[in-house]
């Protein structure tokens, strides 16, 4: 039975799947944090902080969409 199971591949699936999940969760949460904080800062007329948070949100959004594009390339190259 053990011959039928590729333990190395299984282990790779576990750590790669976990890293991919963490990357998705963190990048999109940063998009939301950046956008929400930027809105709060704008309301309080703290324009410098608002710009910084907006930039964080944009960078995180690019990272999140990059992950999505990579996922599509994984699907199409199967």
């Amino acid at each position, binding site marked *: 039975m053990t011959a039928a199971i590729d333990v190395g*591949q299984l282990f790779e*699936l576990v750590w790669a799947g976990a890293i991919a999940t*963490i990357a998705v969760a963190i990048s999109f949460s940063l998009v939301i944090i950046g956008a929400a904080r930027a809105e709060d800062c704008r309301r309080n007329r703290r324009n410098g902080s608002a710009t910084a948070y907006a930039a964080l949100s944009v960078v995180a959004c690019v990272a999140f969409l990059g992950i999505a594009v990579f996922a599509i390339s994984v699907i199409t190259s199967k």
Partner: protein
Amino acid sequence: MPTGSDVILVIVVVTALAFDFTNGFHDTANAIATSVSTRAMSPRFAVAMSAVLNFAGAFISLKVAATVGSGIVDAGAITTTVVFAGLVGAIAWNIATWWAGLPSSSSHALIGGLIGAAFVADGPDVINVDGIIEKVLVPAAVAPVLAFAAAALAIIIIYWMVGRLRPGPVNRGYRLGQIVTGSMFSLAHGTNDAQKTMGIITLALIAHGDLPADSFDVPFWVIVSSAVAIALGTYTGGWRIIRTMGSRIIKMDPAQGFSAQGAGAAVVLTASHLGFPLSTTHVITGGVMGAGAAKRLSAVRWGLAGNIAVAWVVTLPASALGGGLVYAITSAFGSGALGPVVVAVALLALLIVVFARRLAQHRVVAAQG
């Protein structure tokens, strides 16, 4: 003048497309249930988007099509009648689990049906037990556990990061994120599952002698018809399973929905990248439970989760039993087309009765409401 084998081939192709249709409406829930329940998308928009992406996914690659049944049943044991019996066994199981509102793997049902039919046709020697362990049992054990852990990790990180923000923007944000993760899931599902039907029809064409056995070229009409069948099935929507996945296992907020879908998509695509065959049904169900349990263990309806787990365990033997039974009935009418015709007519009658009863129940509920 069509021969008996021509008639069997036509029945096999129609049955394969019917399986593809049931796969579409049965597994639609995997991709969109959490998006619907958190109101990230309206139900109609969600199924339409999923249908389009399932249709598109069917055209993307053909590599999975060539692997259907390989390493599990000896290629020499695959005849048009075995394929037909396997498909009927899988359809019957899909309908039964849809009726019960339980998400189960259509791919496992198809594999089980083929195993049962081949077993009855040629005996145990044509079944590759190592292949079943490697391609079915190990992935079935790994998928939900991994997705459960990944989604739990994701929701813990998300609550830690956004816990002090106002809930309004947070909920709106994760609803938007669910559109992306739901789309990924639908595309991955279309790529994987529509190809299985293409593979089955191509196997039948090879067994019938219409295509050369030494190469596995999927005809264009097979690609188009499979894509249309799975998209139509998806658009029809398996609302019973969507309800189970979206709101009966846990009541989820948009962040939990995003975690379940995001973790599920990450795990499925990582597995695809590594060539590890995971069921999308097992992954997203594990993800939904993980996203609920990490918030509060009692948030998960463990009784329902237990029923789903039992359905998963029973899928392979039940569909194998169905496939074997159908092969035995078909063979009882001889080697001609009569057996498949009788079984196909019986299956059609069963489907009409099932859907008519479901429609009648909906009318009663609507009249009472």
